[in-house]
């Protein structure tokens, strides 16, 4: 059990306990929706929808316009402004070629996206139409208006097929069952969500949400319906005759939009995700866990937006997340690792079969032949001397090159590696030589590391000590002037942290008497 004297012992990298919040796989997944692209619209973004086919263009309805953004570049692609009044609910056909939109004037209009030309106009609603959707069969359009009617149109003829009566107030939400295409769910301000059969134009089921319904959505199985309205989101089991599975009250204000995505979420836990947005500016992702009988919806991630959320959408490959706010801001975030295209998943790329080249001295393989073959049973094997693979900072530490070791640790951009190396240098007394005689460029990575991590309570004490030391070494020197922008940024971070601490102290001060009073009351 004795150790090998004379061999270099690797520097053990510090490991920190998992943080209580936000370090789940789910949290990491949602945080990887990065690089937000924002665009300011003329009015509130009341609806947005991703095109079902690549490259997942985005149709945004705002004020009197419908804007189409390119899914690949996230830049404006088309603008349709053929509306006399406010446009509502521009929705894609399944092939991504046509758009249907309602409007304040009660006219449902059909556009060709490529040419932006108006193809059809359906005029029957007496009141504004807030919801219009294509049937997945491509030949019909459903629209719901503030005249409390739902109408079913034929695209080729341009005529109304049927009128569905049953709602007693504005109809504001509609969704088609992805598993049974003839089945639609509509929700209205009469608190009722009705499920219709398009063939018979009859309501087959109705459930009472208890608040004006703003949005409805189906789970991919088609058996679970989600209704959102008021501050609650309710989940219904359609096969169970409209049994309420769950009532989620996670929002503070009215929930305005709800989306179910089968593809979102990390690889480790594959379950459909339910995304809800509300007027309180929070976007919450919930995951449905468990088997059918044991429904449990857990909020797995929360994102805060600087205004009331009116609409949200997630592209088919879960690579783009778009959120529209009441102040007209549209934010599109891109995930670092989108899913493979579900449409292409089944197609295998044909592989070329390669013939093994002849083993002659003209090829490189000839010279490495036999190197990977296994030893026979009677062969005597000499074990190769295993050379410990050392990290770059370990190599420099071994050679007592302290400054290079610190640079190597900084270049990994891993805070725990830097923390371990700095601790080791402090214990060896090599910190001053690692820090000294650097110019502004040499100090850049170090200051950058400080700026990124000085708010982290796991690294703050060490980095504060390091910053003091740095200022001691470079106080009044020429390198300090080069460091000034970085130092200013560092100062801002520290001030931010101090403000946060100040706020926490205040909260603690407020809580103290309350807790004392409650303890006293017990």
């Amino acid at each position, binding site marked *: *059990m*004795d*150790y*090998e*004297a*004379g*061999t*270099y*012992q690797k*520097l*053990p990298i*510090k*490991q920190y*306990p*998992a943080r209580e919040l936000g370090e789940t796989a789910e949290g990491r997944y949602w945080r990887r929706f990065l690089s937000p692209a924002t665009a300011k619209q003329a009015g509130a973004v009341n609806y947005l929808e991703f095109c079902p086919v690549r490259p997942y263009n985005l149709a945004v309805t705002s004020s009197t316009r419908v804007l189409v953004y390119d899914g690949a570049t996230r830049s404006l692609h088309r603008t349709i402004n053929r509306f006399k009044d406010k446009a509502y609910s521009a929705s894609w056909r399944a092939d991504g070629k046509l758009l249907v939109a309602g409007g304040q004037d009660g006219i449902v209009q059909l556009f060709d996206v490529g040419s932006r030309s108006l193809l059809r106009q359906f005029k029957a609603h007496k009141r504004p139409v807030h919801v219009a959707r294509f049937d997945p069969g491509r030949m019909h359009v459903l629209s719901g208006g503030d005249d409390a009617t739902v109408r079913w149109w034929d695209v080729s003829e341009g005529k109304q097929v049927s009128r569905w009566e049953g709602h007693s107030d504005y109809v504001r939400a509609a969704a088609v069952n992805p598993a049974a295409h003839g089945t639609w769910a509509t929700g209205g301000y009469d608190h009722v969500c009705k499920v219709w059969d398009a063939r018979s134009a009859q309501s087959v089921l109705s459930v009472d949400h208890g608040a004006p319904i703003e949005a409805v959505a189906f789970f991919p199985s088609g058996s679970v319906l989600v209704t959102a309205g008021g501050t609650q989101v309710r989940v219904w089991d359609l096969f169970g005759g409209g049994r309420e599975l769950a009532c989620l009250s996670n929002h503070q204000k009215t929930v305005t939009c709800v989306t179910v995505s089968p593809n979102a979420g990390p690889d480790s836990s594959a379950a459909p995700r339910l995304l809800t947005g509300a007027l309180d500016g929070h976007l919450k992702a919930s995951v449905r866990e468990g088997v059918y009988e044991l429904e449990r919806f857990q909020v797995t991630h929360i994102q805060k937006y600087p205004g009331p959320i009116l609409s949200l959408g997630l592209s088919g490959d879960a690579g783009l997340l778009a959120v529209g706010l009441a102040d007209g801001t549209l934010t599109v975030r891109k995930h670092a690792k989108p899913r493979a295209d579900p449409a292409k998943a089944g197609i295998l790329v044909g592989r070329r079969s390669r013939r093994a080249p002849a083993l002659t001295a003209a090829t490189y393989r000839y010279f490495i032949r036999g190197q990977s073959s296994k030893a026979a049973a009677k062969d005597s094997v000499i074990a190769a001397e295993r050379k410990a693979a050392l990290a770059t900072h370990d190599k420099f530490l071994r050679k*007592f090159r*302290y400054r290079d070791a610190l640079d190597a640790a900084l270049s990994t951009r891993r805070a725990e590696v830097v923390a371990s190396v*700095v*601790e*080791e*240098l*402090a*214990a*060896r*007394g*090599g*910190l*001053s*030589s690692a820090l*000294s005689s650097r110019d502004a460029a040499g100090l850049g990575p170090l200051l950058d590391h400080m700026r990124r991590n000085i708010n982290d309570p796991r690294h703050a*004490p*060490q980095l504060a*000590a*390091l910053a*003091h*030391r740095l200022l*001691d*070494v470079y106080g009044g020197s020429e390198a300090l002037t080069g460091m000034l922008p970085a130092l200013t940024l560092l100062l801002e971070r520290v001030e931010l942290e101090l403000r946060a601490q100040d706020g926490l102290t205040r909260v603690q001060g407020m809580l103290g008497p309350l807790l004392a009073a409650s303890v006293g009351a017990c």
Partner: protein
Amino acid sequence: NGPFLAMTQQDGMQLRGGGQFSARPHLLTLDGQTVLVCHGNFVRAHSAVTGEPLYRLTGHTAEVTAVLADPDNAKRVYTSSLDGTLRHWDLRSGLALRTWRVPEPVESFALGPPGHAWLSCPVNDASGRLFRYDLTTGTPGPLRRKIASGSPLSMGSRGGLVATFERHTVLVWGPKHGPRGALSLFHTKPFTCVALSPDDDTLAAGDRSGRILVWRGIRAAAESAAEAVAATGAVTDAGRAPPPPTGAVEEAVEPVPAPAPPRRAAPPPPAPEPATVHWHAQAVGALAFSADGTYLFSGGREAVLVVWDFASARRTYLPRLGGALVGICACPADAARLALRQADNTLRVVNVATMKVEASVMGLRPVPAGKRARPPALLQPGTGHLVVAGSHSQVQFYDLVRDAHVDRLQLSPHNLGGAEAGTGPEPPPPRVTHLAFSADGSTLASVEARPDAAAGSAPRLVPTLKFWGRAAARGAGAGYVLGTRADDPHRGDVSALAFHPARDAAASASLGAAEFKLWVRDGSAPRSAGPEASRAAAAAVAGPWRCAAVGSYALQPISALAYSPDGSLLVAAAGATLTLWHAGQARLLGLVPPPLPRQVNARPPPARQVAVLSHAALAVSALDGGLAVSCLLSRRVLWAAGLPVLGLAADPGSSHWAAVLGEPAAAARGGGGGAAGTAAQELTVLLFRGAERLPAAAWQLRRLVAAGAAPAAPQILFVPPGCELAGVASGATHPGSSPLVLLGPDRHYSLLRRAGAGAGVAVAATMTGPVAAADVDGDPVQSPAQGLSAMFAPEAAGQAGDKSLAQGTPLGSAAPWATLLDAPSHVLPSLDALCPAFLKLLLPEGEVV
């Protein structure tokens, strides 16, 4: 083919061992098969191939100071000792062939011309004498010189030059003229070591600044210097002529011829100029030449062996040997093999051709240098191995039964001498401050202090709490793997660490933060820590630990912690008060107020150590200058006594507990046999049972320390049940109690032997120290220590008088009423018992009719 000498490890019932063997020169025998080291009163032999212990040479009655090979016979060695003898040993039989009685202790010796030896003997602390000794007749020769005490001698070829050094001077002399005609080589820095090449041509000396000075042609220079001295008829430097020796030694010295008046002669030939080479950043610790004289080996505090090749003027290194090098011995048979002696009690045989360590012998690690008096030491549950903290944040597992190293655990990486010269002061070395084992030994908790990254001359030592889990089935070794670490758990110091006796829970406390924290292991599945399977397995053993609760009492600094053996209670010493907490939550259950101090208005002393006894609801606390036994059920102090307590321990298997008492060393007693300036320190170990005030057994120990030194605390450890050590020691101590191990501050250990039949208090054991000279075993103590008599006198009186009064009476109260009223209110006896006693005291005796 040599006979095997039985190792006498068990001396009767008393197991002894430990101690330092790296302080004195060692020897690699001529055949290169055996390493001999001086270890106390004997010489230990280890195999140079495997490091196994082979045999011991026993016979010296004081510390062995040097061992030298007999150049005529590869199987024979010479040794010298402080008992004033030289011995010639046969390694095959292990017997002393011949013994020479030199009338004074020998510090170092070298072999001169055939039949002669040069001896260096200390006279007092500062000075010593150097003379030739005739081995055939056994008489000291005429050639002598005064030198500094403790100067080690170094020899070149057989019968050739001999060199030694004083502070700034190296002395070299040949056999013909002796040390009085020695060549003196001066240097501005103090020398630390010297070596002569085997052909007597080259002399190398290392100094404190790390430079090595090399003189060539030293034989010719030494001869011409001696000729010059002989020509002038006097010593060259008249001021350095030895004054007439004084004292008892004087009789043995032949009259020194009166120095002739200095003549105006030709000036002495100039000393040859040295070549200086410099690699070591700190003092050179050891120097040696290879057998053929072409290589010079040097080592120092950097733990790097440097090989200097003079022919090609190149250096090669063997780094990271783990401890400061203090001795190098080359093998005459194999030029590539060296035996290195390190300050951390380690002996290594290295091969400089392959640059590999071939064998290592590890002794019990010495106490790390520094101000802290009590590095943690404890016995591992299950195995009974002694676990001690060494320097460089290492923890060593040591088998007491076999006196052998088992394993080591590096708590955090540490490189010796890593500081660059000229970049400010060297940071303080990391140190281990606390260790604790779970009841089954599967988890080890450690606290170590390392310097932080802050600038300044005095970096703060940041404590780090670490939990180590044992990977399953690693055999005898420790096999602990890091599970969880918590940096700076209290934002300040850590004063105590305790492990729950049954559950996976621990507690740590802090003085500065005035709080304690309860740590529990999470039941959740451990995070996958890495690709390595071993790490994952260890993580499964040592799951993540987290802080479950924080507690504090009245912002009092918490100085000690102890769990009750049943695991229901946590006792924390908050200031002078003992606070009782629920072991699972930080919920205060009760308080035990401190015993009343002797002076009115004095602050009660805080407790330094607390232990809760098993099978009894009693807590024992060691205060500053006192002991207190408290009942946890009635929450009152049962009795307290003012005693110089150095430490205490509670038996895990019975209600016994033990305390070590010690006073600062008094002035030297006559006839101790040691050098001047030392004093005997009296230490007493008392074994108590439960709340009884009379100790069940006592041991009186004496050791020699520097006069006036603060008492260095030995540690007492109860042997955990079920281990091999408990089997060896069964019946060794008091009946019903677990055996006691005493670990001295010099890391000598011994098992305390059981008292003789019927002897209540008076049993003595000894502890061998580096300067030896201890009491004989079994000598009963007639007069106990001062504090003891003060303590037990009232008890003897109390047996005759009122028992309820004597109980709970603080010591040292003078006035008759003070014995009544000094007691704290919570220990006052009932009014029924108090009133008659008070009246009896008030009324003068004899006047009552």
